[in-house]
């Protein structure tokens, strides 16, 4: 997976980059299944491999699919990235180990969801009951974000409705509408 990401960095053909990002998200989804997050894997599979790839291809069709040549390594950003990475890794040293049962994350709200949601809400899928019921506000706001994004796309690149009186349809369009 990391190899996919690194090779995306080097490839200059944007088409290949898009295909690799599809593979990348497939791997991410497999990883989620392994880490018990089946719902997340479901979403990632549908969104990352399907919709994202199609949208990226749509953009490439409208722009250019080759990247311009650039300097091989940009040293300033590289140093910045390495320093940030080092700080973050230093930060993880204090973190609870992977899979630790006593980690602080598992001690606060989650036990209540796991123990009570079956009686309080009903559905066996805890993720669904937390998503729709306990954290309904979050999901409402998030749905609003999706709505706004779609409206935004329409506003930015949506075609303007043609004024039919000014502009008679071309012969080609007529032929298509007839067939």
């Amino acid at each position: 997976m990391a190899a996919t990401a690194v090779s995306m960095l080097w490839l200059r053909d944007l088409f290949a980059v898009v295909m690799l990002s599809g593979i990348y998200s497939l791997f991410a989804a497999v990883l989620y299944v392994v880490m018990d997050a089946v719902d997340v894997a479901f979403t990632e599979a549908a969104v990352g491999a399907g919709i994202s790839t199609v949208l990226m291809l749509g953009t490439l069709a409208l722009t250019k699919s080759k990247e311009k040549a650039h300097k091989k390594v940009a040293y300033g950003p590289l140093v910045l990235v390495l320093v940030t990475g080092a700080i973050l890794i230093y930060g993880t040293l204090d973190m609870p180990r992977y899979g630790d049962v006593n980690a602080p994350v598992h001690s606060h709200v989650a036990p209540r969801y796991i123990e009570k949601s079956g009686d309080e809400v009903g559905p066996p899928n805890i993720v669904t009951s937390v998503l729709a019921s306990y954290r309904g506000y979050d999901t409402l706001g998030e749905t609003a974000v999706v709505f706004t994004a779609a409206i935004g796309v329409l506003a930015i690149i949506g075609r303007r409705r043609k004024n039919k009186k000014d502009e008679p349809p071309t012969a080609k369009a007529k032929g298509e509408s007839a067939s």
Partner: protein
Amino acid sequence: MMFAAAALGILVAIALAMFRAFSGPTVFDRILAVNTTGTLSVILISVYGFLTERPEFLDIALLYALINFIGTVAVTKFVQFQGLGYPVGDHEDGDV
């Protein structure tokens, strides 16, 4: 045990496909590599479900199979026509 061996084999196969995807000289190598990787991850997820003895997550594998097909169609269409919405009528109403 059998499932573990199967998972290992699938991982090797994925590695081979990935190599093709990275180095692939032509576009079609890459398309095939992506498609193969998708199919292999479908199998991997199914096998993993049996490995952990909760095989009810086959839904995900099913979804993968469907999405993989759509992705491949989109990619091949892009390669052939340089665009996604090819037959598009000029007489259509606009979006906004």
